[in-house]
């Protein structure tokens, strides 16, 4: 590119961790600053929507969009940035798969609002108030974005060029992606960047199960003294490693906690959750139908376990809300 490439960051419905991971670049942020021209970064710089609208179409070279599409504002900006940028990257689990906000798809809007405004333990008296889209204030009329019934991923709203998984994406991967962008060696459109194509088991050094070794009882991580050398599955603890793309450098597994699957499914797999359920169900060790039921009691919250980050992108959401 002739002059410095224009970069944009946007923070939709998410926790903001993905913004912080950029700042984690530390001093390297300064080098980035020299090489690129950041034109929009609401979390860090004081740009307004009007500035973006003022840009010509496709003027932004690379846009890092993190966060799920939860309300009308997220969607509007998504469309705006799509129009304005050549390359739109779904940055982090929320935009890639729906992330933790995606779990809202378990409930409909009414239950959620009731929980927040009526029955939450921290409320002392609930007069059944609900947020109104338009409010008359002394300063004038203000609007708040409309809450959609379904949490969507970025790719379910606009056409996305690249996906960068992770909750948040590991800072080294972010740096390597910056370098590939600057070097202009981005792979073909639609592929996942900043991660490998196989699963965590490929890089995990724990001792794997041998034939005939099966799960007699599911245990939660806090219920058992976890052996750091052995694969979690052989200890009856569900680890999403086998169904999750490698690339994060295993911070959880090395911290002796089972992987939760934030890097999403590996290449060639559409729905991460059912793949994991299919795997752990194959390991249940009994041939007595009654005992089977008791063992499955151990999987307390299957959706939360296997779709912690991927519920919005999963077929279950499509089923619930229709295409």
């Amino acid at each position, binding site marked *: 590119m002739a002059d410095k490439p224009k970069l944009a960051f946007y923070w939709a419905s998410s926790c903001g961790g993905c913004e912080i991971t950029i700042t984690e670049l530390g001093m390297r942020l300064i080098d980035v600053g020299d090489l690129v021209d950041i034109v929009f970064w609401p979390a860090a710089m004081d740009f307004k929507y009007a500035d973006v609208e003022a840009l010509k179409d496709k003027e932004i070279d690379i846009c890092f969009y993190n966060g799920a599409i939860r309300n009308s504002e997220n969607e509007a900006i998504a469309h705006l940035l799509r129009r304005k940028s050549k390359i739109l990257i779904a940055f982090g689990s929320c935009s890639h798969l729906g992330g933790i906000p995606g779990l809202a*798809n*378990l409930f409909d809007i009414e239950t959620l609002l009731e929980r927040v405004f009526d029955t939450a333990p921290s409320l002392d008296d609930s007069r059944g108030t609900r947020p109104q889209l338009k409010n008359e204030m002394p300063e004038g009329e203000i609007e708040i974005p409309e809450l959609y019934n379904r949490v969507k991923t970025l790719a379910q709203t606009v056409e996305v060029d690249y996906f960068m998984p992770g909750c948040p994406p590991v800072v080294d991967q972010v740096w390597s992606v910056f370098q590939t962008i600057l070097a202009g060696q981005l792979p073909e459109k639609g592929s996942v960047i900043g991660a490998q194509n*196989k*699963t*965590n*088991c*490929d890089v995990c050094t724990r001792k*794997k*199960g*041998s*034939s*005939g*070794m*099966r799960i007699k009882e599911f245990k939660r991580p806090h219920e058992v003294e976890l052996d750091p050398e052995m*694969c979690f*599955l*052989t200890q009856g603890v569900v680890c999403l*490693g*086998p*169904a999750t793309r*490698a690339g994060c450098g295993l911070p959880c597994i090395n911290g002796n906690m089972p992987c939760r699957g934030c890097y999403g499914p*590996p*290449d*060639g*797999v*559409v*729905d991460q*959750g*059912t*793949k*994991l*359920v*299919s*795997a*752990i*169900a*194959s*390991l*249940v060790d*009994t*041939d*007595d*139908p009654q005992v*089977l*039921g008791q*063992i*499955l009691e151990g*999987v307390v*919250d*299957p*959706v*939360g376990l*296997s*779709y912690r980050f991927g519920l919005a992108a999963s*077929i*279950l959401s*499509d*089923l*619930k809300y229709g295409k």
Partner: protein
Amino acid sequence: MESNHPLTFADQVRAMPGGEHLDLCYSCGTCVSKCMIQQKLEPEYNPRRLLRMVMMDMREEAFNSPTTWLCSACDLCYPACPQQIHISDVIEAVKNLAVEAGYSTPLETVEVDEARCSGCAICVMTCPYEAPHLIEKEVNGVMDRFSEVDAENCMGCGMCVAACPMGAIARPGVSNAEISSQIDIKTQNSSPSLVVFICDWCLRVDADLEILESYPDNVRVIHIPCSGRIDPQMALIALNSGIDGVLVCGCAPGECHYQRGNYVSSCKLSLLDKMLGQMDLANGQVRFVQLGTQDRGRIRHEIDGMLVQLLQEAS
């Protein structure tokens, strides 16, 4: 009394665990009548005759007989045998000797795609026949771990294919793609559409197979080697493509042709049911039924019952 002449073929088999009472067999044919392989797979299959071949030291005929290779140790025959001979053990002993002698299995077995395999060993733990095992291999300078399937032990049931989170293991004919491609129903009239995944072994009598084929095209029947081959994703894909219901038929407890396929699929489908429940989508759209060898004609009740339920659901 230790005899000094060299071990005959029969002696070798007798020495194997389960082969001790080999000579008690008086060829009554109960095992052949309980076993479904001759009826469903291979007309030449006959465990009784294989025992006779062993007793009469007919070594080569035994190694070439399909019985040696097709027995999946489902043990339908062992509890029925009046002489209480562990027939599947004897057949396995003959198979091991055959493998040593260089013979190989005629069965379609699974292969591992090392480009996708991450060495997570889930297939190793799942397989009832201990066919897959982990191996260390150097791939362009770096040591890597893959699963490798011992063809002689693999029965081709496909349980590992469904269990592999990467889809890195497959058997020609029943790969994920080939099954998913069959999930499509173009319904014209108002009657509900139903996909029936049915394992090859749970319908004992041919009459039941005719019942299965007698349904109009709003009922799509998909044959899979074992109900353990089912993957919850296939059920979701079916529901998502507008199909009203999914019925998975497997063998009754203790009668699975591949030993534990029915337990595996009942786990998957109850977990799927629990998830659908959490998403408050659980309205009996996905059902798992286990048919026993004496449940003649029950397949009709199960399918008709489901269609009626789906009809009520729809209205």
